């Protein structure tokens, strides 16, 4: 995939370019808002990483400009302003995701992949099925072949989120945001402990398609649900 990186700090910009390169993505670098707008006109990108505080114009104005031109390219706003209020402001202006500095490279890559492929994501509320693994929203039960297991609300939401993002890396903080809707960072391993209960339940069914990426997050592999 090709991403446009808009970041004025050379050290951070280089870190992002190198990190995304390691994940197999191509990048274009813009150091100012006006440069970013020029580059977007020149060629299409799968997503934009946009610093909020730029030397010329504010990152929020860049999104505003891009959206008014009818360009729906997904935007991940990267900012040193990390409060809940700043985050809400960014999302209200039209950013698809918001990440506070300092960030983890795997986190940035996972979030970029998620927003870049958002248009192919399954709609929420539909019956969830990956291979022969099924999730029943009315009874909160997971079924695999002839076996079924009851899940509590958290395990159900966790599995549903992973199934909607099959074969994609989902990070812990993405899960905290989407499954728990927490805007704060817990100090204990909430995600790990709940994930481990979910995997125990799935193992009892005879199918554990969840793979742990050490230090990064989780991937639900569709080929393991056959």
């Amino acid at each position: 995939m090709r991403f446009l990186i808009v970041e004025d700090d050379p050290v951070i910009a280089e870190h992002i370019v190198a990190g995304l390169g390691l994940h197999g993505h191509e990048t274009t670098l813009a150091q100012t808002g006006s440069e970013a707008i020029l580059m977007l006109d020149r060629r299409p990108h799968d997503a934009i990483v946009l610093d909020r505080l730029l030397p010329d114009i504010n990152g929020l104005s860049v999104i505003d400009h891009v959206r008014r031109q009818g360009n729906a390219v997904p935007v991940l706003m990267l900012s040193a302003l990390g409060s809940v209020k700043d985050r809400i402001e960014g999302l209200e202006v039209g950013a698809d995701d918001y990440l506070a500095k300092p960030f983890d490279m795997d986190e940035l890559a996972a979030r970029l992949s998620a927003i870049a492929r958002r248009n192919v994501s399954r709609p929420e509320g539909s019956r969830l099925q990956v291979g022969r693994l099924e999730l029943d929203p009315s009874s909160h039960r997971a079924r695999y072949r002839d076996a079924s297991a009851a899940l509590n609300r958290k395990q159900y939401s966790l599995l549903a989120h992973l199934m909607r993002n099959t074969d994609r890396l989902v990070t812990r903080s993405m899960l905290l945001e989407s499954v728990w809707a927490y805007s704060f960072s817990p100090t204990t391993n909430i995600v790990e402990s709940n994930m481990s209960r979910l995997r125990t339940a799935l193992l009892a069914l005879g199918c554990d398609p969840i793979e742990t990426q050490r230090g990064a997050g989780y991937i639900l592999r569709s080929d393991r649900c056959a």
Partner: protein
Amino acid sequence: MRLIPRALTRSPRVGRLAIQFGMAFAIAMLAVGMIGFSAADAWVLSRIDASLRYHTAKYLQPVDGHGADDAAVAAKILDWQRRKVLSERTYVLFGRDGARIAGRLDIGPLPPGFSDVRFLGGGRNYQEGRALATRLPSGSLLVIVQHSEAAASLHALLPGVVLAISLVALVMGVSATFLFARLTANRLAETQSTADAIAAGDLSRRIPTDRLDGMFAVQANSLNRMIDRMEELVRAQRLFSSNLAHDLRTPLTRLRGMLARGVADGDPALSGTFERAERECASIIAIFDALLRLAEIETGRHPSAMGTLSLRPLIEDVADTMDPVIADRGGTLEVGRLDDVAITGDSDLINQLLINLLENIATHTPVGTRARLSLERDADGAVITIRDDGPGLAAGDLARVTRPFERGASTTRGSGLGLAIAQAIVRFHRGRLDLADAAPGLEVRVRIPANDSPGPIVDAGAAA
């Protein structure tokens, strides 16, 4: 900043002030009544004295150039007695030896001059009168006694009149105070609702001054200036935090990038050091985030989605979330009684409050600790109790640990902000957080006022 109790905003209490004001008014009226009565009394007395002097002079009028003698005076008295059957005046003439020469009044001789006397009038009742005794050249004593019905009835009226004046004054004083308080309260109502909004963190509110006059307008203007200044200070503080956030986060981002590169292509012997350095970097950020969050909640700048919040599903959700965390650390989490209570609250903040408190148990108690979470409804509202059977806290630590950067004596982990944030969240919801010795263990009790008004219930449960 102290929050104004809700009861005060609806009907300001003026009771004691009204009574005090009414009493002062009544005492003032009582004094005025007594002065007025004394003046009237003195005037009547002076008229009586003047009348006594006049009649004495008339009786002692010289006849044919000679001073009036006893016989002449006695004759006048006898003459008067024949003519007058009823009179307010009575004449008595005593001889030198004190024996009554003329007159019918049953009194003894009096010292010369004015005096007050009591005598048997009409045969049975004692009456009071004013007497003027005058010595004749012969040594005899002429006494004229005047009994004034007017003066007597004035005296009889005294207690009733004074009491009536006082009562009327009391009622008028109390009513005037109530009226004044009501008018004042009407003018202060907008000030009060503005103060409440500011206490809840909305610094953009100002007291509308278009309907105020006099000292109320002056006061509202000066309060508005004070709020302007407060808002300015908060904005400066916010700008400072934002700048600090930016200035600190940017170098930390660079540092993290460099460390990551060090892990990726550095000496394998050093990669452990790099990883540890990266973790330290992450904990600096965590403390920093917690501090900013604490500041946001305490200053009311947290973008809050306050709504009617049903606590039971929220607590069940938190219990589901924290049960495996506590179990993984060798403890157990039990859910006790859960009543149905709704509060006015922000679900994100209440979630953080409960997660913080349960994480404290997971982090700071030994393996095997049992925790119990319950929600009860009492007269004042919701009572959330989190109790564990761990080692608890020393008595001196109980009050200390909810302050920023304070920890229990035995622990060094954590940012030291968890309980301070919990405290700030509870205060934000107009509640209170109490820590108590559960012997053994610690009991944390959170009280938040209930919201019983019908309205849309926000289900803070599963977000996905």
